[in-house]
């Protein structure tokens, strides 16, 4: 048969309108073009003009339409009518819902505002929710950083004044060697893929350090299948090698770091702090004169090698402390190799490659600039070795110091804020001193005495009572977690249930699936949420929850405030929050309702303003008591955090031409929409590198409202705030830690980066629990949202347990077998799959795919419920009892970050016939109807 080519319409109309907004399928915040047909969402693609994604879009982003149309969307406010956890609800009016919430909260504000605990999950309005909680007056507010990556963020701020992801990124266009540490498949999404694509196109070498060779590590030129929890030791072994060879950038260390600072060696309360002059300026030894002089004295040659002798005591510079420590044989590759699971020769080869690229392939840009000392430089020279890291190195109980070690490595080779290295994104760099301190001062009817979260500079900034009782329900900023800069959301429910440090009345959660994948020890947390007093009342009296979807947490709420989808509401991706800037540009963006909700739901932020007005919170009502803001969009436009500084930095001023600072502009959101949903403002070329020390950058940052005055600073190789906590542990100062925490503080608050075995490794019998167990999110999902998405769940719909060939053979597994995985806290049962590109002593599975039956509008027999389990069931928020009468937190002792990745397990074969995963929780009743079985979605105009 001769084919007769039919006539095709090669130019069909794609849509009748494109609306440009910001994605929310993960936390990446890419720009999207939403194609509309007949007022409905038809197709979503990346926005080519957007600074984050430049037109590309990941699987999640393109599947946004299925999220927007999800059958799991809540439809109306819900009042619980069955027991907690059952999912039995009655739909109520918004007026009843808001009145109920107000009736619960008003008496708390008037008598004991701390009895409201308000915690939000992965939301992107933290500067707003924190402002609301501050006005309410409760000290108990935070978002999800405590179980995500606070180690990374805090270590970065204390060391270099920034960290990875929204804080900064590799110089993708120039780097020649890229080391990727502990990055699971999800963080961040498009920018890292775009960056890797650039490196690959140039043939730059990528080294992946990760126990699992999937995702980004699959395309790494070299893969280092490290033993979980030993990254810090590996990094310090690289440091050892670089020091040993003298392959370090001494000029950079002298000019831009505290390496020359003299450390007080005299016994007493100042020991280990910097020697300072009468103006409190740190002292350095001038090589010309041999004298100790202020660090910024013009014309001096700061010494790194020698100290000064005062009263018979020699005070050495930071660099000597550093070189003495890391040149010790403990850090030699031969010593670290067995623990890290990496041959010594390979550690040496990687160190040599770093040295070769850093010092033999340096990059010099013909770009003059002037530093904060007033010295003009004709060029910008950089060492093109870049690094990036995420939760894999931070979600350990040694994670803070491991992240510090990584920054130490970057600094020693002079690759931070130099061409080819790591670059800050405004408003970073920002050292700890430029951040606020934490606050918890509360009193009835009054706002909190300051922002909740911040960066303590010593024990004086802890949020504790005279008797060391924590002021916050999550015990953040207490001796147990002194630098918990993001709060400890994962401890809220267990502490509230225990009434430790005090009881609360109302737990108010937003977008945080705490009854499931966002808690450690999930089964027990579900019990805590339903636990009752002898009189039948709940241990946690009231639970209010806001979510757009029928999640597991919904079933445990007494009152549910249904949120909209991300295409139905206003948001601002604010510089006051988690910014989306680029190393060369300031940027922020909005979401706006590209469609109106077809259900009785309201955007949570507008609801919060409504509640605030009903409660009469300061800043949310006018003098006559009427609401100050119409809705969240009105807040975004008209709220000023400081004069001229608001949630959005673009199009400010009456005529919309001010950048950064300027009066509120009532047309601001329209201007953002006209501009594609975002705003950018480029950094002058002479200000694009060396930002912490670059006078042009500092001045530009002040003009744009990022700082109120120039904030040049030196990198903290040696962290004085950490040393202050050690001094307290040694018995100095007014504020003293409880005795049982002294040894731990001494160890973990070391002012120079250290490595110690994580607590689980240190305390678990390796013969009984020989394996490490990890969980990672796939690139195509973002926590529990992704796996209910009709398209995405077909990519990953269950959670096999991946085991190495060694374990496979040892256990005599065969295809189709199931494994029982047991930790000291519990067990799960999963189908098992062999994977050899894996550290031989590690098993892993996907995170947040497992679902409770009845949740997310999925069929109760869906594989997410029957072929899947969360590793969370194996992880406790506390360590097993040690016999000392205490229960120690399973967290980093510096920041309190949940130590998810410390998990150790044993494995066994499940009995033949296993066909359903364990644990198999009872089904929750669905507050939304079951969807139609089949889907064939085509938008008709």
């Amino acid at each position, binding site marked *: 048969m001769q*084919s007769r*080519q*039919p006539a095709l319409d*090669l130019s*069909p109309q*794609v849509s009748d309108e494109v609306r440009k907004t910001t994605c929310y399928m993960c936390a990446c915040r890419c720009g999207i073009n939403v*194609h509309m047909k007949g007022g409905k969402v*038809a197709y979503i*693609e*990346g926005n080519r003009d957007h600074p984050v*994604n430049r*037109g*590309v*879009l*990941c*699987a999640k982003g*393109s*599947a946004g339409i299925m999220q927007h149309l999800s059958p799991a969307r809540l439809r109306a406010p819900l009042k619980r009518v069955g027991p907690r956890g059952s999912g039995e609800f009655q739909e109520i009016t918004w007026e009843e819902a808001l009145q109920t919430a107000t009736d619960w909260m008003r008496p708390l504000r008037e008598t004991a505002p701390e009895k409201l605990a308000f915690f939000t999950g992965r939301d992107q309005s933290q500067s707003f929710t924190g402002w609301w909680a501050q006005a309410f007056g409760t000290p108990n507010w935070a978002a999800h950083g405590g179980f995500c990556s606070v180690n990374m963020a805090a270590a970065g701020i204390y060391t270099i004044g920034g960290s990875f992801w929204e804080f900064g990124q590799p110089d993708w266009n120039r780097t020649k060697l890229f080391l990727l540490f502990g990055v699971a498949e999800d963080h961040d999404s*498009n920018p890292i*893929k*775009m960056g*890797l*694509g650039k490196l690959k196109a140039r043939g730059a070498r990528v*080294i992946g350090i990760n126990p699992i*060779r*999937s995702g980004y590590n*699959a*395309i790494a*030129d070299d*893969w280092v*299948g490290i033993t979980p929890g030993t990254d810090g030791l590996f990094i310090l072994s690289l440091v050892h090698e*670089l020091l*040993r*060879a*003298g392959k370090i950038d*001494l000029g950079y260390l002298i000019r831009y770091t505290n390496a020359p600072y003299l450390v007080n060696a005299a016994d007493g309360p100042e020991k280990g702090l910097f020697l300072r002059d009468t103006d409190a300026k740190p002292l350095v030894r001038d090589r010309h004169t041999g004298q100790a002089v202020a660090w910024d004295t013009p014309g001096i040659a700061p010494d790194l*090698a020698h100290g000064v002798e005062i009263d018979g005591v020699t005070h050495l510079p930071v660099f000597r402390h550093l*070189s003495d420590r890391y040149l010790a044989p403990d850090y030699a590759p031969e010593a670290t190799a067995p623990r890290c699971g990496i041959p010594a*020769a390979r550690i040496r*080869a990687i*160190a040599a490659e770093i*040295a*070769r690229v850093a010092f033999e392939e340096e990059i010099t840009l013909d770009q003059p600039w002037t530093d904060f000392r007033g010295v003009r430089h004709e060029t910008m020279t950089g060492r093109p070795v870049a690094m990036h890291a995420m939760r894999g190195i931070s979600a350990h109980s040694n994670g803070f110091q491991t992240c510090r070690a990584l920054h130490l490595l970057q600094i020693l080779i002079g690759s931070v804020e130099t061409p080819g290295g790591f670059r800050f994104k405004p408003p970073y760099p920002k050292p700890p001193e430029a951040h606020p301190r934490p606050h918890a001062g509360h009193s009835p009817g009054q706002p909190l005495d300051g922002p909740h979260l911040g960066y303590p500079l010593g024990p004086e900034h802890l949020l504790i009572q005279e008797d060391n009782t924590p002021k916050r329900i999550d015990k953040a900023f207490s001796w147990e977690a002194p630098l918990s800069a993001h709060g400890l959301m994962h401890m809220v429910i267990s502490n509230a249930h225990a009434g430790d440090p005090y009881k609360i009345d109302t737990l108010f959660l937003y977008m945080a699936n705490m009854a499931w994948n966002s808690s450690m020890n999930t089964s027990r947390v579900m019990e805590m949420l339903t636990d009752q007093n002898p009189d039948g009342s709940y241990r946690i009296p009231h639970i209010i929850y806001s979510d757009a979807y029928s999640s597991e947490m919904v079933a445990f709420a007494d009152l549910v405030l249904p949120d909209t989808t991300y295409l139905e509401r206003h948001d601002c991706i604010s510089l006051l929050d988690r910014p989306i800037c680029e190393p060369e540009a300031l940027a922020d963006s909005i979401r706006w309702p590209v469609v109106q909700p077809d259900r009785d739901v309201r955007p949570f932020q507008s609801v919060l303003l409504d509640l605030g007005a009903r409660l009469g919170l300061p800043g949310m009502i006018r003098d006559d008591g009427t609401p100050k803001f119409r809705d969240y969009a009105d807040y975004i436009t008209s709220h000023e955090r400081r004069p001229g500084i608001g949630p959005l930095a673009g199009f400010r001023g009456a005529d919309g031409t001010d950048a950064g600072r300027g009066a509120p502009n009532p047309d601001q959101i329209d201007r953002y929409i006209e501009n594609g949903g975002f705003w950018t403002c480029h950094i002058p070329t002479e200000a694009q590198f060396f930002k912490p020390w670059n006078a042009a950058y500092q001045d530009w940052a002040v003009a744009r409202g990022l700082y109120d005055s120039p904030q040049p600073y030196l990198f903290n190789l040696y962290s004085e705030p950490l040393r202050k906590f050690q001094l307290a542990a040694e018995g100095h100062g007014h504020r003293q830690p409880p005795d049982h925490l002294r040894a731990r503080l001494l160890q973990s608050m070391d002012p120079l980066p250290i490595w110690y075995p994580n607590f689980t490794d240190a305390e678990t019998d390796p013969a009984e629990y020989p394996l490490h167990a990890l969980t990672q999110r796939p690139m195509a999902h973002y926590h529990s949202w992704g796996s209910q998405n*009709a*398209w995405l*769940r*077909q990519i990953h719909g269950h959670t096999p347990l991946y085991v190495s060939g060694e374990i496979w053979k040892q256990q005599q597994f065969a295809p189709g077998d199931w494994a029982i995985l047991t930790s000291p806290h519990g067990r799960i049962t999963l189908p098992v799959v062999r*994977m*050899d*590109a894996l550290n031989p002593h590690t098993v892993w599975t996907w995170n947040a795919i497992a679902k409770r039956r009845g949740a997310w509008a*999925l*069929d109760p*027999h*869906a*594989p997410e419920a029957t072929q899947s389990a969360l590793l969370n069931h194996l992880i406790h928020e506390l360590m097993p009892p040690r016999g000392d009468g205490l229960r120690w937190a399973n967290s980093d002792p510096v920041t309190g970050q949940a130590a998810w990745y410390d998990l150790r397990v044993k494995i066994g074969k499940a009995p033949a016939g296993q066909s359903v995963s364990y644990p198999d929780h009872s089904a929750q009743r669905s507050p939304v109807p079951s969807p139609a079985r*089949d*889907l*064939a*979605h*085509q938008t008709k105009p």
Partner: protein
Amino acid sequence: MTTLPARTDRKLGLVIDLDTCVGCHACVISCKGWNTENYGVPLSDMDAWGEAPEGSFLNRVHSFEVTRDDAPPMIVHFPKSCLHCDNAPCVTVCPTGASYKRSEDGIVLVNESACIGCGLCAWACPYGAREMDGAEKVMKKCTLCVDRIYNQTLPEEDREPACVRTCPAGARHFGDLGDPESTVSQLVTARGGFDLMPEQGTQPVNKYLPPRGRDTLATPDLASLCTPATETATGFLGWLDRALERI
């Protein structure tokens, strides 16, 4: 059955870089979204929220593990869609003429109004690149976004397949593989692009670029690059002093 054109004016197709593909499935879902809204019937999802969801996809990513005797195992992500073969067995097997290869650009398409859903073409394709739609029972396959690449209503830069436009890592390239001077042909030459299963005689237009060598880092250790600072006569401190004098 159905005949193929003797020659095509151009050979439009994809070049997929297996060295760069991170296996993120962006191309899979972008394709799903575009082709659900556009060419032919929507790509359905049977039992979409149920026990065994089964949807139609024109592009899927498979992941393979490669174990090696002398190096660590590798994972290769392998995106697969219709390869728009010059000698396309799915066309010649079609009893109705529904499957055809366009003479102007070589794109292989299914005329859905002529498709009887017999499934012979899917059997004939050695790559498993065709999928019967569960709802409409017509054969679905990659169209190379024929309704994008010539679409006068789109900006010129967007006239490329949805999978190429969206790929975050830049692992997918689109162009005329019949033109040796085209960017894609040059890329194939430079990187040793290859045909998938050439022994099948299908003469695929799409090409794959192989993964570059992995785990080849063999830099000699530092001691052979320099005299270690710690091994100079005066030790590390002596080296440090001399180095500081030079700053």
